[in-house]
Structures are given as C-alpha cells and as structure tokens.
C-alpha cells in the first residue's frame, strides 16, 4: 500500500503542467470560437458603425450632417495619398503616435519610479504617512488640467509641461494604490515573517513588496489610463506633435476625418499600453496565475 502512496505522492513532472496549461488554453479558445460570444461582439460593432454611417452619409440626420462619415474616414485612413496627409501609409501618422507613446512612457516610468516607493513608504511607516499624506491628499483632488497654466510657467518649452502633466496624473494614481496595497496585506504574513526572525527591512523586502504587488499593478493600470487622459489634454493645449495635437489641429483646420482617425488611434494605443501593463503584471505575479489555473 505504501508503494501506491509513494508513486502517487510524487508530484507529476512539471513538463506535464506546461503541456496541460497549453492544452487548456487551446481548448478554451476553441470553446470561445464555438460560443456565440465573438459573433455577438461583431454584431455590436456593426450596429454602432452602421448607425454612424447611416446617420451621417445616408440619412444625413440633423446635427450629423457636418460630421465625418464612416466611409469617408475609412477611405482617408487607408488611402496611399490621403487628402489631409495622414493615413496608415504616411510616416507622419507614426511620428505622432511615437511622440505620444514616448511621452506617456517617459511620464509613466517616472511616475512608477517615484510613486511606488512613496506608496510603499506611506503604507509601511505610520510616522512617514502622518507627515506626508496630508500634503499628498491636498494636492490630489486638484484636476490635472488645472495644472496646465502652472506647468507652462514652471517648465520652459512645450515638451516638458506635457510630460509633467502626464506624470502628475500617473504619480497620484500609482502612489495611492501602492499605499492601499500595503495596507491590505494580511497582518498574519507580517507577523509570520517576524516570528521567523526577519528584521524589519527583511519584512519589507520579502513580505510588504510582494504582498502589495497585486494592488501596485492595479494602480499601474489606472495610471496608464490616466496618463493618456492628461497627455491628450496637454497636447491639445501646448503640444507640437502627438495624437492630441493631431486631433486639435484637425479640428481647427477643418480636417474632420482625421479627428476620428486620431480618436480611434488613441483608443487602440491606449488599450494596447494597458494590456501591456496587465501582461507584465501577470508575468511578474506567476504565483497568482497558477492559483486559478492548477489548484485541483
């Protein structure tokens, strides 16, 4: 009987775990295709795009008349020689995307670099929080865009104010969520580590940081969204390149289809960047992913 136990107790070889996960993912995908879900989602898009097309270009409803139509925008977007100079094939389109993405990346990195440590300290040491959090909480409610004039005063040129605004939004979101993350760590983990002889700084490194990680990544995802929010505003007010700038100038120069191109691109790039953050989170916190996957 003990032979039965020894053989079964040995955990199955990890390779099987890997293969099993891939098989399960493939199976889930097949089930998703078979289910009505993707087709209904497509129906949703068709309905919205269809209404937009009909309202503007076919029925020409009041108010919709002046708007850029679906077909017009699509033709502009995919033409080799776009009327207003911006389409998939013009390098300028990618220059603007790059300008915006670079600004968000720069501001997001800075916000993470400053926000996460500050959040960890705010959550970990009560003294530090009692001194620093009141000022933090006083500045946080001020709408990011109210900082625009001050940003222009404080920073020379047109580039740094935009970066500052984008940074500010992300910074507050990241620091706050990191702090909440530290506070939400189950106290028994901290106590267990102290029982096992860990000194305070070891508790910080081995318990507080990994324990707060899930909330840190929630914060980072919000921070990316907020970064794009304030980037657009910044670029509209004082930018020279970037998607916000494109949208604004397209409006002033009556290049309406380009407005829509700008908006859709912003949506897509914004979605991609937050997906990137989600993936990084999932990869860094593998122990969580396994929790839902393999636990029998």
């Amino acid at each position, binding site marked *: *009987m*003990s032979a*039965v*136990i020894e053989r*079964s*107790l040995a955990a199955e070889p990890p390779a099987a775990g890997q293969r099993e996960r891939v*098989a399960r993912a493939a*199976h889930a995908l097949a089930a998703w295709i078979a289910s009505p879900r993707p087709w209904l989602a497509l129906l949703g898009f068709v309905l919205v795009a269809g209404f937009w097309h009909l309202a503007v270009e076919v029925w020409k409803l009041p108010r919709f008349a002046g708007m850029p139509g679906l077909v017009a925008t699509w033709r502009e977007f995919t033409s080799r020689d776009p009327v207003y100079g911006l389409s998939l094939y013009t390098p300028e389109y990618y220059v603007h995307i790059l300008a915006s993405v670079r600004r968000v990346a720069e501001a997001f990195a800075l916000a993470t670099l400053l926000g996460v440590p500050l959040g960890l300290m705010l959550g970990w040491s009560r003294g530090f929080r009692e001194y620093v959090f009141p000022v933090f909480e006083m500045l946080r409610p001020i709408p990011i865009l109210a900082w625009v004039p001050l940003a222009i005063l404080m920073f020379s040129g047109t580039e740094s104010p935009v970066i500052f605004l984008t940074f500010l939004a992300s910074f507050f979101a990241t620091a706050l969520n990191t702090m909440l993350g530290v506070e939400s760590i189950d106290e028994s983990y901290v106590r267990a580590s102290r029982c096992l002889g860990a000194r305070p700084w070891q508790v910080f490194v081995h318990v507080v940081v990994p324990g707060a990680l899930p909330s840190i990544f929630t914060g980072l995802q919000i921070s990316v969204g907020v970064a794009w929010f304030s980037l657009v505003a910044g670029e509209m007010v004082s930018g020279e390149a970037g998607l916000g700038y494109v949208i604004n100038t397209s409006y002033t120069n009556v290049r309406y289809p380009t407005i829509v191109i700008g908006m859709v691109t912003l949506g897509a790039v914004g979605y991609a960047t937050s997906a990137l953050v989600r993936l990084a989170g999932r990869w860094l916190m593998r122990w969580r992913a396994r929790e839902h996957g393999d636990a*029998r």
Partner: protein
Amino acid sequence: MNGAMQLLGVAKSYGEGAARRPVLEGLDLDIPAGRLTVIIGPSGCGKSTLVRLLAGFERPTRGSVTLDGRPVGGADRRRLVVFQESALFPWMNVADNVAYGPRARGVRPQGWRPQAAALLERVGLRAFAGRYPSQLSGGMQRRAELARALVNEPEVMILDEPFRGLDAMTRELMHAYYADLFEETRRTQCFVTTDIDEAVFLADRLVVMSHAPMRVREVIEVDLPRPRRAADVLASDRANDIKMRALTLLHEEAMRAFAGGSRAAGDFLAAYARRRAPAVPTPETRA
C-alpha cells in the same frame, strides 16, 4: 405523508468533449418522507452536485430525480436549500429576510406574518429582527436561515454542511436546535456533511457515500431514541458502534478516493500510511 425523494440511475457530468468531467454515474438514492437522512462522504466526492440536483438548480445528464413520484422541475419552495455559507440577503434585515418567500409569492400578510413571528421567536431571534445579517454571529445567521426556509413550509429541506465554519460549541448548540426543530415539524430532511459526530447525532438514517463515482456505499439505521441529547449520544454504546462503522467505511473510501487522484484524500493516506510510530518519549520521563 409526502416529501419522499428518489434518485434513479442519476448521472451528471460537466463540460464537453475532452474536458468532460463525470461526477455522478448511475446513482440510486432514497430520501424517505418525514425522516432525517444524513449523507456523509469524503470531501470532493460530489456531495454538492447532489445538493444542486435535489434542489433543482441543475438537471441530471441521465436518470430521474423525483419528489413523491413526480419528476422534479426547477428550484421551488417545496425543496429548499440551506447553503454552507449564509445566503441571507445582506441588504435586508432578519425580518425582511424571513418574510421574503411569502412576500415574493404574493401571499397575503395575514397568511404568513403570525407564523414568521412565531418562527423568529422559536429560533430566539425576535430581539434581532431589525438587525442586518452582517451584525449577527455565525450561529444566529444559521438560525435566521432555518427560519427563512421553514416559513415557506417546504416538503423537503436540503442542508449542505450548514454548520461548517461555526466554532464547535456553537455547532453543538445548533445541533440541538436543529434536532428539536425537526422533531417538531417532522419535515423530510436531507443533511449533507463530512463530520461523523454531527451525522450520528442528527440522523435517523445515515447514508455513507463512495467516491468517484459517487454511489451509496452503505445505509446505517440510527435507531437512537429522540429527542436526542448530546450527553446521551456521547454515552451511548450504540451510537459509538455506528460511529466506528462509519469511520471504517469512510477510511476505505478515502483509500479508493486516493487512487483516483483526489488530493484531499492524498494527505489522508500519506499520514495514515505511517501508523508504525517510533518509540515514544513522554514529557515526564525526560524533564
């Protein structure tokens, strides 16, 4: 006397194709009217699936589930469930929770109000009628849930490990409460648990289930006198024999469950295998 339920050749599996997971195969089970049937089996053997089938939340893949001979439809008030974690509506106070069933069915207040008040009194919660569930202790929540079910006068009560998670003392007092309620109402009860002492104390009929596929391994008639008192059951040799019999059956099932790869039983056998304990130091000899 109605309220007899029967499962004939019931099979249930989840998922399709490669991921099909059969949980039940060809299960035959009798739940006689007016008696307290306790169902016990190793964890992970499909007891919760059985509860969902009896309650009508799910349909069997094959076979039939009948109440007094008639096949069971969806969930309805003739077969009410008390879940493992409380399903009291957190946003309603105790009184509204208890009154929910009759009100939802449009029964006139004169029809249920006196009985609801009596039930609240009976479970000792009249003073807490205005409280929200989150303001009650575990034991009090369970009593409120029993009252909420009983006010609808179900023919069968299905309980899925309702007292798990309560501390042992509250559990003991809840056992007494529940047994008295049963002896008063004599409604058919189907009580699912993994706790042997709870099973022996409560049951008229103890059904020990096998593991994967879940089948009736043995039915033990618990002919202890009623009303049951904890002290008497503890002292009774008959109760002790029943407990030993059930324990042995369950250990054998755990052995088979382990061969089926169930992790929970795996711990069981891993520890159980090394019964040959080493020579033993007692604290006194060494100090």
